[in-house]
């Protein structure tokens, strides 16, 4: 069942583009914002890309469960005897693959825009690959809580942003540590892994519980 939901959501995909659009817009205008200072740009580059990833994950989340809720698929999935957690897992995984994976793949390209060193780009790809699934799962809580509301988008973002802050902090810290010398990369990176795992577990169960309430 998990596989079927995952594959279907991959095919339906689509939501990813708006995130990518936004990401592109963000990366393009930051250089105009900071002015022509390449060193500064390189310094804040990792943070910009991380924040961009977080925000573009937010952008499509609104429709994560809502489409299924509105056309009755969610009811059917829940009444099919399968665990809701499986449904959440499959949907979040598909969401991550369609929205965030392209972003991560594009990081080398964006990094070039922002004048990042190769090490920094490498570190970004690694930390983002590890950290963004945590963000997606945490975001799923917001998507599940607001699934029955007529206008979810902004509310969802408000609810989710505070929860995502720890992952953001350690993602950026680890990336920075990778290319600034004295700081060790491993400790923040391990914390990031722990946070993602924690976020995934909490997100999985909390959003499953919230979905159960929402279809009541």
């Amino acid at each position, binding site marked *: 069942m998990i596989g079927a939901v995952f594959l279907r959501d991959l095919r339906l995909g689509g939501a990813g583009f708006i995130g990518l659009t936004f990401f592109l817009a963000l990366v393009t205008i930051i250089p105009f914002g900071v002015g022509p200072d390449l060193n500064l740009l390189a310094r804040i580059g990792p943070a910009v890309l991380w924040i961009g990833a977080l925000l573009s994950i937010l952008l499509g989340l609104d429709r994560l469960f809502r489409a299924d809720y509105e056309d009755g698929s969610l009811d059917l999935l829940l009444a099919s005897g399968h665990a809701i957690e499986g449904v959440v897992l499959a949907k979040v995984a598909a969401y991550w693959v369609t929205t965030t994976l392209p972003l991560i793949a594009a990081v080398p390209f964006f990094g070039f825009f922002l004048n990042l060193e190769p090490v920094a780009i490498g570190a970004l790809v690694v930390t983002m690959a590890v950290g963004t699934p945590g963000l997606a799962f945490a975001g799923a809580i917001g998507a599940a809580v*607001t699934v029955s*509301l007529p206008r979810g988008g902004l*509310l969802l973002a*408000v609810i989710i942003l*505070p*929860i995502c*802050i720890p992952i953001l902090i350690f993602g950026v810290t680890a990336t920075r540590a990778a290319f600034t010398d004295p700081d060790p990369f491993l400790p923040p990176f391990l914390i990031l892994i722990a946070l993602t795992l924690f976020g995934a577990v909490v997100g999985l169960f909390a959003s499953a519980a919230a979905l159960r*309430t929402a279809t009541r």
Partner: protein
Amino acid sequence: MQIIELANPTRFLSISARLMPVLVGATAVCFVVGLYMAFFVAPPDYQQGETVRIMFLHVPSAWLAMFCYTIMALSALGTLVWKHPLADVSAKAAAPIGAVFTFLALATGSLWGKPMWGTWWVWDARLTSVLVLFLMYLGLIALWRSFDDQIAAGRLCAKLTLVGFINIPIIKFSVDWWNTLHQPASVVRLDGPTIHSSILWPLLVMALAFSLLFLVLHLAAMRTEILRRRVDRLRRLAADDRLQQGA
């Protein structure tokens, strides 16, 4: 039927109605005494001068900001574990009050920050985590207000409240875990208060006054919420065709 007996909002309404005048009186007395002590009894700080008096507003609001979220988290447990209808009402009523106290803590803190640190705002761990707390209050308020169905709203907000509770220890221990400008705890700590009694006493009285104020506001908000829900229910009943048959 047991749910009705267990909850008994009617009894809650009558008891709280009787308690209310007493609580309001006690709050007023505490505030008068506390403010008097804070402004006339407590000595000005040799270093900070008169600005130290902001502390008597700042610290209690900061405590209450965290306390209020704790109350909400406990209420959330009540909603999820015992399905107690009053727990819903309590959580919903506490959110705006908590937001106000958090705002007070932020406002007084930054007023104090200007003379002390030379800036209204710095992004340090303590300050930022309080700001995040403020955001969570606002998010929960917005979420509550978005739902028509109060039962569903109660359960969903309860889950979210519990998830957000991690922030409370972060606020409390941020000063110990990270280097910040903000000063570490001197009253509420394991090895007892380290602060001089001429300041400690006014502070404690003010804290009591704030707590009583919270209690009064919370009870009042809960009463309003219960009555509001009853009105809402009556309106829904009016919409029910089957009842109109008889009417």
